[in-house]
């Protein structure tokens, strides 16, 4: 009996609770980044290496609009719309001409876009990180911590954006067009669905979602030209673990991996916890290459 009590007391429950909250917050942001990535892959077989830079660009547009208006919410909306438009322009100019070519060309093209955007940001904004102020600065006490409300708001907003997007996919006419195109591009076209424009719209939506996460996450870290790298790497892991092109799977995998990393940080250094996601990635590729959160293919 004493042994059991001793064991239970040895578990750092307060830390586990805190890390659960942390994991869910990071997971929701990651899900927002990864949904766009997985959707773009699912519909046009394009692995978008520029996704992290769209996230970064979103954060910078947020910084600019914040400086001009001082209003976080205007910054969030304007940044989402601006980067969605930039995404549409990028898709039309660089990816649409590559339709029907070797998929390798699209990897090179998006990788090129990512380098251009990153270096543009470095040139334009310099190497010093910018700051987006959070829209409010309340705290609540979580065990021994003062936990910022803003973090919960991020999680809630990300969930709301993903939820709205899911409803749109499920019930909207254009949502049905997107799902039909994902399943059978040729038949979708024969049903009168303008497939090239569906591709452009999906790329724009994905870019807008990345930008929204950039602005939401901006207040937690500095905004700099390389901030997209970490995220896109994690988003790729999540997309593979969740099953390439599977939206629900990516969202589940985002939360799963973020929670694992958060728990790992109780015992290993914050830098070391990244290992956890790679271990999950390797195990997934070894034992369930179609993805962890998809039904077993028949």
């Amino acid at each position, binding site marked *: 009996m004493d042994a059991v009590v001793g064991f239970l007391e040895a578990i750092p429950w307060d830390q586990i609770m805190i890390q659960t909250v942390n994991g869910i917050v990071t997971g929701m942001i990651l899900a927002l980044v990864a949904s766009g990535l997985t959707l773009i892959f699912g519909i046009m077989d394009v692995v978008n290496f520029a996704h992290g830079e769209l996230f970064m660009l979103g954060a910078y547009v947020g910084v600019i609009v914040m400086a001009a208006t001082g209003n976080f919410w205007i910054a969030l909306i304007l940044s989402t719309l601006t980067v969605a438009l930039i995404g549409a322009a990028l898709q039309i100019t660089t990816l649409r001409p590559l339709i029907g070519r070797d998929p390798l060309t699209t990897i090179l093209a998006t990788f090129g876009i990512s380098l251009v955007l990153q270096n543009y940001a470095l040139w334009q904004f310099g190497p010093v990180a910018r700051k987006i102020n959070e829209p409010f600065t309340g705290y609540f006490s979580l065990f021994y911590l003062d936990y910022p409300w803003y973090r919960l708001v991020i999680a809630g907003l990300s969930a709301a954006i993903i939820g709205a997007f899911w409803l749109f996919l499920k019930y909207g006419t254009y949502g*049905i067009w997107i*799902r*039909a195109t994902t*399943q059978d591009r040729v*038949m979708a*076209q*024969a049903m*009168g*669905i303008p*497939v090239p424009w569906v591709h452009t719209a999906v790329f724009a939506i994905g870019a807008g979602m990345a930008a929204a996460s950039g602005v939401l996450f901006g207040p937690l870290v500095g905004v700099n030209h390389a901030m997209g790298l970490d995220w896109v790497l994690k988003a790729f892991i999540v997309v593979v673990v969740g099953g390439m092109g599977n939206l629900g799977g990516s969202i589940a995998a985002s939360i799963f991996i973020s929670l694992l990393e958060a728990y790992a940080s109780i015992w290993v250094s914050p830098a070391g916890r990244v290992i956890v996601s790679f271990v999950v990635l390797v195990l997934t590729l070894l034992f369930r290459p179609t993805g962890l959160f998809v039904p077993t293919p028949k």
Partner: protein
Amino acid sequence: MSAAGPDTDPLVTVEGIHTYYGKSHILHGVSLNVRRGEVVGLLGRNGVGKSTTLKTIMGLVHPHQGKILLGGTPITGQPAHKLARLGIGYVPEDRRIFRLLTVMENLRTGLDRHGVTAERKQELLDKVFAYFPVLAERRSQPGGTLSGGEQQMLAIARAMMLEPKIILLDEPTEGLMPRMVSQIREIIGALHREGVAILLVEQNVPLTLAASERVYIMEKGAIRHHAAAAELNVNDPVIQQYLGV
């Protein structure tokens, strides 16, 4: 409505099309026409280019040479989604149901177009559900869970959502049991009575001869024979020559 003069009013005209898949030359100058409201059969052995002819008309592959006209207007080289809006419905050989979309969502891919009023949408749905009551029962079920025959009905119903002037029907009875085959035969008749033209590719010769007004027979990527369906029968030497085993 289908009583258009026999030699007037071509709806679809195909003139000498040459289609390639990569480097292989599939169609060698195919010419045919379908009049408004007419059912035309396209017969031939496997691999002679029947499906490719339909895909070329639908704009899914583009011919290197030749012309395709819809109601007198050239449509060669137009993308498939524009042709679908101009009134060409396509029911492919392998049905190509959107498997993860429900029956209703499959229908909505063709139904949710600009300029179609809510009442008109309801009319169209009522019409296909009257033809295919089983689709009404299964409207919330994913298309992939339907049986082969039900998927074929869904593929036809989905094309009907476009209110097409012509439906390109590729082997609709392939792999279906006899009861389903006769149901497909009835639906071809019903579409014909409504004035929808049909270009029917089939392996089932008796059905094609019974359903069509004229038939074309293809061999090696070209049309070899053209006759009124009434002039042919299953034991005709022409049929034996091009289709006999």
